[in-house]
């Protein structure tokens, strides 16, 4: 296996803590917050993360395919989730300990519930506003009600973290290392 060449392009307004494991070609957009103990592995192909995303502790984002893994804006990756989806839209929520396989493409405004495993055998696309919940990962469509309040909440969440995280964690700056 070819050695992984690390190449991190982190926007100056993004907050990435020191304790994050980064590997491979990773681009992080403005305003994104990566908590300590998160893991972003661009093993086979690059990962591009949009702006305003929040990646919490123990989240694992892995790209094992050669294609670029694009993650959109304002997504929330909660604690313990493991994401391998090749393309993710914006305003999605991946709840605690959820797992998304590399066969699923996620659009926008989706919610993957806690502990849900999305691992269909064939390639699948989750349309907008899909909610996955329950132990057997049932799906249903959200009407979108309350999305403005949720968007507002997420922005406030990100702003709060932007203030607080640097006070208590060391930040990783710039390129490499």
């Amino acid at each position, binding site marked *: 296996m070819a050695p992984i060449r690390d190449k991190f392009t982190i926007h100056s307004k993004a907050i990435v803590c020191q304790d994050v494991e980064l590997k491979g070609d990773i681009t992080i957009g403005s305003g994104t917050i990566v908590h300590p103990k998160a893991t972003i592995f661009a093993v086979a192909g690059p990962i591009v993360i949009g702006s305003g995303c929040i990646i919490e502790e123990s989240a694992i984002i892995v790209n094992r395919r050669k294609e670029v893994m694009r993650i959109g804006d304002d997504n929330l990756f909660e604690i313990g989730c493991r994401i391998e989806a090749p393309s993710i839209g914006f305003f999605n929520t991946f709840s605690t300990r959820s797992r998304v396989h590399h066969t699923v493409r996620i659009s926008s405004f989706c919610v993957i*519930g806690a502990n849900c495993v999305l691992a269909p055998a064939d390639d699948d696309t989750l349309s907008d506003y899909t909610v996955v*919940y329950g132990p057997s990962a*049932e799906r*249903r469509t959200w*009407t979108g*009600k*309350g999305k*403005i*309040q949720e968007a*507002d909440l997420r922005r406030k969440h990100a702003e709060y973290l932007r203030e607080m995280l640097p006070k208590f964690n060391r930040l990783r700056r710039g390129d490499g290392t």
Partner: protein
Amino acid sequence: MVSNVLYHCPCLSASSVPPPPHLESSAYSFHPLHTLFFCEECDAVRCNRCVSVEVSGYYCPNCLFEVPSASVRAEKNRCARNCFMCPNCRNTLSVVPSDPPDAGDGRLSAPISTVGEPPFFLYCNHCRWDSSEVGITFEKPTGLAAQLQKLEDYAPESLEFDRLKEHFEPILRASSLSSSSSVAPSISHSHHHSNPITAAASAALARDIPGVAKYTPHARSGRPSGKDRSANKDEMPEYKSRLDINHASTYGSGGGDVDVELMRRLEDVSEIASLEQRWNYSWSTSLETRDLKPLRIPLHSKRSKRCPACTHILIKPEQKAQSVRYKIKLVAANYLPAITVALPHQIEMLGHISAEAAKRSTKAPVDDDKDTRGGLQAGKTYPFHMSLTNPLYDPIQVRLSVQRMHVAAAVSSGEGGTIDKARRPPFAISIPTTPFSVAPFAEAWEYEDDEEMFGLDDDELEARLSGREKEPKPRSKTVGILEKRANVTVVGGEVALGKEARGEVKFNMLVAYTYRSDDPAPSEGHDISPSKKAALETKTFAFYTVVDLGNIIPKEEARIDPYDV
């Protein structure tokens, strides 16, 4: 396959001797220790089946509000205070304001106010269902139950039920009048009462009092006398329902053409509400998922348990809904010694397996070897260890004895006796029968000989887990008291399996222990009964247990079908 010890509860039966364990019916009389209670007055073990249960309070599982029992009936066993259950995923709904008007994409025209904007609706955080899908919105975020009550009252089922009640009232009143000594049911209303309290009051007024003439507001044509009684009853007017029965199925799953049409038009199975979603409703509702309405959360109850014989309280929970403790907690674990059984060769085998598994991480474990090595093979003799833990603050003397099983006349299940023959004489148990003592329970630091014992244990464990299968420790005996440590005594026994043995190795064991209470310090949960206060008074208690050592791997099938256990 794990070996365990279950305790016998006689459940008020005359004989305290339990049935032999190879009978299927005996499974119900044996319970694990943590599910048993102990009644001090009767000096007996009680289990969940023989204990009498009563409700000690009702509470809402969501808001943890204790509901007084009077309101429970009035509110139909549901929470009256804004607690609703999502019909889709059965989680709690929260009241949520609507979104402010959206100017453009992602840009807010005005900051969102903290109170929020009407209309408010119910929203499930888990599955993102919201009540606007069924058309329920509120103008105010509080007092939701009252707002929904109006909806419930005008539902077709409630109106139909009220109409039925109105129809049957006069008839019931007439029949209660005509019977000579009637304890009139509370249904004899003079007119329809919506409030159950005034209904109860008017029922009390209408009650038949001997010696006093009955008050009837309506003049009845057929004044009840003995002969006319039957005539009155037969004169029942015909009931006209509010709705035509054929159309009723649009409201509920009453069968009929409407449901058939629904099934024909079905495109996706998720359109039909599942059983878990539907069975919480009081009436039978429509089958479609989109018709499911939010429900008020049903109340839960806290129960207290009493001894069936002397009605003393065994378990009494605290009144506060959020506290999980108990005011009175007479559990058997505080009185009876806890017995666990283990087969040392199984433990050794498990140690080997885990050591080997650590070495080769991806190779699948070799199953049949594990079974034959760790299981009980016919024709061999295995030692087993039983540890008894004393919960009392006094030392106890324990005497064990195996119950004789009368299996001479046992019949096989009619299949020629080859399959699942109850292992009757096929095994012989030997356990120490001399009384041995177990030290009293005390705090951990009070045991002096702790460190020595623990050092020994570590060495033994290392010797077992690492290395080859060898004699774990040169013991002079396998049957007898093996060790005593803190308030635990380990005794060893032996089971010898016959060559043709099959089935499970289970035997009843009588445990009799005597304890002396020479200091009157009470143990946990004790009522100090007079006999204990007397110094040097010995009390004996005996109970039966069943010891299950696992299944026997029959000899000839050991290689062919290891999964036969």
